């Protein structure tokens, strides 16, 4: 196809296209327009071409050809043309209808699209909403789970408590049952006893049977029960209670006084501490202290006057406690200030009181460290020396000597003591031997004495002569017998003889002499007979001496007697000493 025709086609089709729209919008098109368009396409010159073109078009559209080339006449088949036109119109109408339909459909679909868009936005919103709801629900679920857990815990606790209460109830129930049983048993016993009493005819009455009344414990007579005694009892009871309260109150007062004193002391101390620090601080915190200082001075003056007065009333007590609180607060703040100052001084390194103290502190520390080091060295050297001592080889002698060197003195002392002990033991042995010998001798002597006595008695009985000289030899033999009999015969005459003795010294009579000798021997035997020790030797010796005084002027015969008796006495002395 030629391009011009195509162009024409295009423009015609475009033109054709637009008009339907227009046609659609406007019901009718003016005829002149149509004719105007037609006229441009086909002119008298290009009829053939137009015809062929239209033929082609129509055939391409599927319609019967309008014009056949066989006919030479340029006249068109009107019928065919009309049919064609009619078909075209139908087609056009159909096309319009389909267009309408399509438009309608398009409208519908656009409406659908809008609707869908709306629904989608709505659904999106719903989705959002539901998501939010979901999270909210999850949150709620979580909280509910927590609650469930806590409730479960509560339940467990409650169950435990219930269990505990059940246990308590069980124990109480068992206790009640036990009591019930006990009471029932007692009740039964009571019933039995009652029955017994009803049956029992013999009624035993209560009675007391006392031999005699005994007095009251405190010795007083018992009083009748009168109002006076009742009042007295009441009074005594209240007295007891009051005295108890009294003592308690006194104790509490003392305690209170003590505590007050302590508080006052504390307050004074705190005030003194703070006042001593005041000049340093006054420069820094003038405003703070200014107002307080005055009040404090006032307080001090006020309180010192009140020190002696005991704080009875509530106001005074409150005042004391408040003032202490105030002082304590001040002290606290002061200490904090000091602390901060100390830390500043450490950091700054400036020379003020705190730094100085720090330096001295450091010096102290260094000194102490040095001391410690010295001590350690000392200990070290000591240890070394000790080791040397222990490990050094020494010869046996010195080793043996050294091994016991600590005990040497003790050992020597022990040896000495052993020696003395041994000596004492030998002495004791000797004395014991002497004693036994003396005892044996004594028994022998006693035997001899008894024999002598017997013989003497015999002699005495048989030979009753007034001549004492003839009696002397037998007397010396039976001296002991005579003495014993003398003592036996007249214990009372012995002191007489003793008394006679001193008188007898001046005028010695033959009769007296044997008596004096006999008294000395008499005492000796007196000592011998009871066999007592300690004082007797002394007495004996005294008397012996006495008699010795008497004897000195006498004949040697008596001296001999005296010697014998002396020997005897010495023997006995020994004997007694050994005892």
């Amino acid at each position, binding site marked *: 196809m030629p391009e011009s025709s195509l162009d024409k086609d295009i423009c015609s089709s475009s033109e054709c296209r637009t008009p339907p729209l227009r046609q659609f919008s406007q019901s009718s098109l003016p005829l002149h327009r149509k004719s105007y368009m037609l006229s441009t396409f086909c002119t008298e010159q290009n009829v053939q071409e137009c015809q062929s073109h239209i033929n082609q078009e129509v055939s391409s559209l599927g319609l019967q050809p309008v014009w056949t080339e066989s006919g030479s006449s340029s006249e068109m088949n009107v019928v065919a043309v009309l049919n064609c036109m009619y078909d075209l119109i139908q087609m056009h109408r159909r096309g319009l209808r389909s267009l309408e339909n399509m438009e309608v459909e398009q409208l519908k679909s656009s409406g659908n699209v809008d609707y869908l868009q709306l629904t989608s936005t709505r659904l999106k919103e719903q989705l959002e909403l539901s998501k939010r709801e979901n999270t909210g629900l999850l949150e709620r679920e979580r909280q509910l789970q927590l609650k469930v857990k806590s409730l479960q815990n509560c339940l467990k606790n409650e169950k435990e408590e219930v269990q505990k*209460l059940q*246990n*308590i109830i*069980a*124990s*109480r129930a*068992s*206790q*009640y*049952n*036990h*009591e019930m049983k006990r009471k029932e048993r*007692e009740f039964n*016993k*009571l019933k039995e*006893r009652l029955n017994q*009493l009803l049956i*029992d005819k013999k*009624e*035993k*009455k*209560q*009675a*007391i*049977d*006392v*031999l*005699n*009344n*005994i*007095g*009251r*414990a*405190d010795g007083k007579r*018992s*009083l009748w*029960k009168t109002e006076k*005694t*009742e009042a007295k*009892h*009441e009074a*005594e*009871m*209240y007295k*007891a*209670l009051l005295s*108890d309260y009294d003592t*308690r109150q006194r104790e*509490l007062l003392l305690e209170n006084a003590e505590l007050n004193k302590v508080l006052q002391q504390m307050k004074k101390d705190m005030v003194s501490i703070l006042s001593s620090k005041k000049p340093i601080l006054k420069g820094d915190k003038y405003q703070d202290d200014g107002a307080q200082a005055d009040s404090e001075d006032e307080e001090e003056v006020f309180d010192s006057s009140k020190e002696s007065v005991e704080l009875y009333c509530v106001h005074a007590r409150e005042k004391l406690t408040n003032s202490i609180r105030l002082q304590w607060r001040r002290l606290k703040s002061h200490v904090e200030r000091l602390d901060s100052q100390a830390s500043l001084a450490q950091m700054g390194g400036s020379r003020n009181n705190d730094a100085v103290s720090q330096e001295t502190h450091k010096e102290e520390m260094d000194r102490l460290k040095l001391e410690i080091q010295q001590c350690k060295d000392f200990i070290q050297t000591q240890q070394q020396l000790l080791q040397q001592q222990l490990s050094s080889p020494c010869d046996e002698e010195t080793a043996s000597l050294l091994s016991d060197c600590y005990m040497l003195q003790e050992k020597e002392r022990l040896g000495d003591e052993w020696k003395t002990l041994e000596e004492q033991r030998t002495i004791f042995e000797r004395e014991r031997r002497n004693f036994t010998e003396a005892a044996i001798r004594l028994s022998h002597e006693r035997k001899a004495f008894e024999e002598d006595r017997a013989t003497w008695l015999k002699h005495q009985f048989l030979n009753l002569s007034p001549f004492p000289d003839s009696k002397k030899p037998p007397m010396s033999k039976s001296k002991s017998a005579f003495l014993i009999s003398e003592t036996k015969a007249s214990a009372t005459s012995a002191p007489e003889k003793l008394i006679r003795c001193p008188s007898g010294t001046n005028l010695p009579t033959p009769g007296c002499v044997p008596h004096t000798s006999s008294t000395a021997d008499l005492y000796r035997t007196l000592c011998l007979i009871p066999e007592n020790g300690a004082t007797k030797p002394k007495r004996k010796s005294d008397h012996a001496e006495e008699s010795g005084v008497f004897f000195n002027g006498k004949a040697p015969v008596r001296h001999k007697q005296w010697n014998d008796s002396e020997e005897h006495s010495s023997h006995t002395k020994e004997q007694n000493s050994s005892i």
Partner: protein
Amino acid sequence: MNFSEVFKQSNQLCKVSPDGKYLATCVQYRLVVRDMSTLQILQLYTCLDQISHMDWSSDSLFILCAMYKRGLVQVWSLEQPDWHCKIDEGSIGLLSSRWSPDGRHILNTTEFHLRITVWSLCTKAVSYIKYPKACQKGIDFSRDGCYMALAERRDCKDYVSVFVCDDWHLLRHFETETQDLGGLEWSPNGCVLAVWDSCLEYKVLLYSLDGRLLSTYSAYEWSLGVKTVTWSPSSQFLAIGSYDEKVRVLNHITWKKITQFEHPATINNTKAVVYKEVERRPAVGADDLSLHNITIGTTLFNTQSKYEICPPPVQIPVVKPDPDRANPKIGVSTLAFSSDSRYLATKNGGFQVQSLNWHCSGDSLILLGKEQLCLCYMDTDQEDK
């Protein structure tokens, strides 16, 4: 320790006189009085029946012998052996018999706790006290012997009567706020009466001498309550031992609890010193110094045994008692203050300790078990532990 020869006795009736000079023992129906220093028999009395109870009077001049089965009480005099006194309660029966503090009156509790008869040995007069209560400790004399407190029960309510021992005059009679009175005890200074409820309720009431209620104390509800109550000798503290194995101490000024002692099965306290008796068959005996508790386990006394110190924590063997039975063997059952109120000895649980007694100087403690005894000396230098 030296022991004398063994003397026969029956019913565990063997008492030393209050003045410490004589020893009285009962053998069946005979009463034997011995001199304490020489243990020679001074007097021999014969009663009419087997003696159930025997007691010295407070002035050590008289001895009462009670024969519960026959309802008889016989009183013997040491000064005059010929003197005799026989009290016959008749058909009413006899439950218990005791001396009054002045040593001249005898209080007989008749059977079924019907009444208490007060017999006077001075005037042969009789007084009756009706409705005494049958409980753990229903009657108590004050330490100076002036007053007697008696628990009574009338119309399902508990009362306390205070009598003047001089002439048995009723001084005060008041109702107590207890459900079921378990016991009462005078304070050593005689001014306060502690009254406690039975074990079903924890309640301790404090009444003053003239009957006013001073204070009430209750540690907890429902569980088994008070087991034992003791005053300190200075009347400053009241120690309450209960079934929950704790001891609570109240002070006399506010009557509030000042401290509480526990008896845990494991001793973890570093301040406590635990002594364990060690012998061939190791059994546990544990002691505590300082203001803590002393618990004693069963031990077989062996002269060769010695005590060693156990380091904490120490596990004390505890036998769990049957909770279904009444009056279970748990809880603090014995309390004893030392004479200077410095130490408190307690016995918890079912240990076989019959009694705890302090020496009057307050430095040593004697523990009596069923078969053995143990003397503990406190180290007084360690008082700050």
